[in-house]
């Protein structure tokens, strides 16, 4: 509750220390492994931020946009460079900077109750808009508001619109309320691409859309997507050669951000797949903060985004107990390729519409439950964990129903922990660790079935002296 404000309001946000996250100052946070694919990804990202830092001199146009329902191929066809504020926010979280950024935004009147990505982004902007590599990000030439699966996106770019003097283009992607994509929804998205998005991009770049170029991008997307699906499905092996959640967020990096449709992305995913296949052959598990994890006691499916401020700590809690994520829904927010969707160069606009409509958070709650059930069964999971983040109501509202329903349908118990995306104040380490360990011990006890019968007569305790 704020105080009375008669004249300009400059709230009374509490100052907090930046999160106790991983070390500050480094460039993009990527786990220390010897994997060539990781090194490649690191180079790709560095290269992209280099391009961004000289975009204005190079005459490149910059679009800010969101991960779910991103139109990367279309931007690629116009040679626009994407900036993804969500990724900047999560990188700020991993680098221990988000706490200060959020404070900055709250001092400016933003509520404690709302999405910390938004506040982190606004705080970063007010603190000089320095990106994860330490280079200043260019201002946008376009705010491409792909309003997919998250209401807050709309508010976010309304807020940014007030900060930047550039056009905003809204792409309203209707929600799959009944678990299906109707022809009307699809047409609505295509209509908006034609009436709003493409004309706006043409105006900004001064180029006409080259459909052939778009189709080439889409064909490359498809190749990367094929490889990624095989990577996901490798987790059906025992031991799993990947961690489908913590490790998975690194695997989705290129395809969910600026690189889908590029040759780089194809090379990355083919290289990654080869590495995964090697591990299958040798029976090796994935690299985790606790080392290579081949001894996998618990196979879990995870729902919900990770807590970026305590990413490695959270991951450690899993690896220390021998728990591995075999599948996760967060790694599907930017596309559900493993459920059959592929970008289709034959139908460029239709395929973009299908892609946007199909993202995980754009699916109805019942169909999210169906998907999780499928994962639990097809990946032979011992259990599932829901990480409920305060920031994201799109994910979180209804997760307790997901928990209940999945337990009922699969007979597998679920764990429920709460944290936040990038607000370090909401990560209670002891609390989360307690729940997770209790949960895994419960799985263990259930697995062992019989507990030794230990006396059966009623218990009477003698009175204390």
């Amino acid at each position, binding site marked *: *509750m704020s105080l009375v404000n008669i004249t300009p309001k400059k709230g009374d946000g509490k100052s907090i220390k930046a999160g106790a996250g991983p070390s500050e100052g480094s460039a993009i946070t990527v786990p220390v492994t010897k994997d060539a694919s990781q090194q490649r990804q690191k180079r790709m990202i560095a290269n992209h931020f280099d391009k961004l830092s000289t975009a204005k001199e190079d005459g490149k146009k910059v679009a800010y946009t969101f991960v779910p329902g991103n139109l990367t191929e279309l931007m690629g066809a116009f040679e626009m460079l994407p900036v993804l504020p969500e990724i900047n926010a999560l990188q700020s979280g991993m680098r221990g900077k988000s706490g200060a950024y959020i404070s900055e935004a709250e001092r400016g009147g933003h509520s404690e109750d709302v999405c910390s990505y938004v506040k982190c982004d606004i705080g970063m902007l007010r603190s000089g808009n320095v990106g994860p590599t330490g280079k200043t990000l260019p201002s946008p030439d376009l705010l491409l508001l792909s309003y997919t699966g998250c209401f807050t996106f*709309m508010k976010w770019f309304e807020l940014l619109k007030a900060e930047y003097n550039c056009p905003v283009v809204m792409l309203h992607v209707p929600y799959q309320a009944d678990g299906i994509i109707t022809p009307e929804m699809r047409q609505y998205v295509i209509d908006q691409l034609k009436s709003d998005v493409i004309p706006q991009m043409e105006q900004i770049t001064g180029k006409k859309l080259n459909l052939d170029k778009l189709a080439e991008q889409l064909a490359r997307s498809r190749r990367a997507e094929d490889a990624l699906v095989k990577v996901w499905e490798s987790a059906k092996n025992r031991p799993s050669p990947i961690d489908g959640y913590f490790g998975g967020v690194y695997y989705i990096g290129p395809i969910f951000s600026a690189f889908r449709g590029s040759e780089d992305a194809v090379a990355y995913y083919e290289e990654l797949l080869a590495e995964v296949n090697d591990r299958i052959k040798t029976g090796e598990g994935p690299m985790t903060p606790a080392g290579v994890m081949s001894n996998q006691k618990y196979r879990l499916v995870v729902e919900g985004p990770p807590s970026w401020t305590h990413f490695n700590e959270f991951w450690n809690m899993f690896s220390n107990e021998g728990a591995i994520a075999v599948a996760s829904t967060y790694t599907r927010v930017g596309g559900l390729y493993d459920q059959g969707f592929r970008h289709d160069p034959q139908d460029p606009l239709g395929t973009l519409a299908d892609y946007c409509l199909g993202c995980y958070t754009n699916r109805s709650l019942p169909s999210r439950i169906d998907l999780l059930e499928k994962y639990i069964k097809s990946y032979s999971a011992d259990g599932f964990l829901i990480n409920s983040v305060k920031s994201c109501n799109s994910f979180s509202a209804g997760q307790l129903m997901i928990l209940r329903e999945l337990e009922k349908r699969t007979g597998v118990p679920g764990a429920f922990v709460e944290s936040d995306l990038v607000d370090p104040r909401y990560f209670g380490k002891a609390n989360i660790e307690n729940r997770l360990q209790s949960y895994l011990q419960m799985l263990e006890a259930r697995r062992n079935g019989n507990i030794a019968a230990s006396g059966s007569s009623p218990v009477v305790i003698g009175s204390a002296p």
Partner: protein
Amino acid sequence: MTAEPTATHNDPAAAVLRRAHALVADYGMAPVKSWKDQHKGALAVGHLPIYTPRVLLEAIGVLPVAIYGAGDKDIIRGDSYFQSYICHIPRSTIELGLTGMLDSLDGMIFPAICDVIRNLSGMWQMLFPQKWAAYLDLPQNFRPEVGGRFYKLELKRMARELHERGAQALTDEGLRAAIKDENLRRAALDKLAALRRDASWRVPASEAYLVTRAGGAISAREHAALVEEFVAAANKRTGQLKDNVRVVMVGSFCEQPPFGLIKSLERAGCDIVSDDLQLGLDYMEGMIDEKDDPLDAVVNAFLYQGKATASRYIGEGTKGAALLEQVKRAKADGVIFAAASFCDPALLDQPMLEAACEGAGVPFTSFKYAENTGQFQVIREQAGAFSDAVRLWESAA
């Protein structure tokens, strides 16, 4: 809800207020059963507080019923579905459903307000599989050939689905008649707004709120008559201008503040002369066109005449301009931002609206509430300080 009509002797509005009070009893469900008794086999469909095309429902013989949560009812089962950082209305709505309070409804519409209500639509589908439940995706593209086209198809789909469940078929005649009724309501609510603007001492905000909300589960025509009657009666009241500050209250468009909170604000010296409490009934600026193709008219009214609330994308013009216009029209001195705790749309909107107020020199204050808030002391003190400060500021100016 524990609304108490002002019980003064010889108040010309006493009778109509009593009726309004009866209409909001039982969480707004009081009128539904008698309506269904009178209209055998007809459907009643609930909707969450924000804009819902009630006119379409009335056109096919369906009673639209606004669901406003459960006020301060004890919540047990509803709470078990939501984390503590989610607002209150979805819990209380589920509680109402699970305790059988909504059994006389044949379906529910969840209009696009936010992600929580959106997800609630899916939860509802699973909790009440035998009932019709629809998420209404209101377009955020306002081109008639794009967003308009999509919305028209959505409306047709809804009408078709309800027809399959026993509602009348959608016809132009039916829709025209419903539009006429809706316009009667529009005219009556405009009169109420004018009365609040011109003689706020005759209409406490709590009464205006009650009389508006009383339309939640009756037809537009009946509601129009009720509002007209209240306006006529209130006009007969004597009484005189009080030394209160005039405020516009915004941010309370979904989860409703407790009645006591509205009264507390008034007691603290704030005359609420305009608000966004009842966008489910009071969303359009101006009349729906009665001459055009009626479905086009409904769609166009949404595209061009919808209020600039937080759940509507403001692509053109400036954020906050509509609020400043509302302040000007209501001749208000300031703005109270009253948002439900954890209400994403209202709270994300607020910094932009505050900036607009700052820019225009409109004083404002802000607080959060929940529909079951039981303590108003702090809010009353804050509102009191605000009204004092506004008066000082004005006398200094």
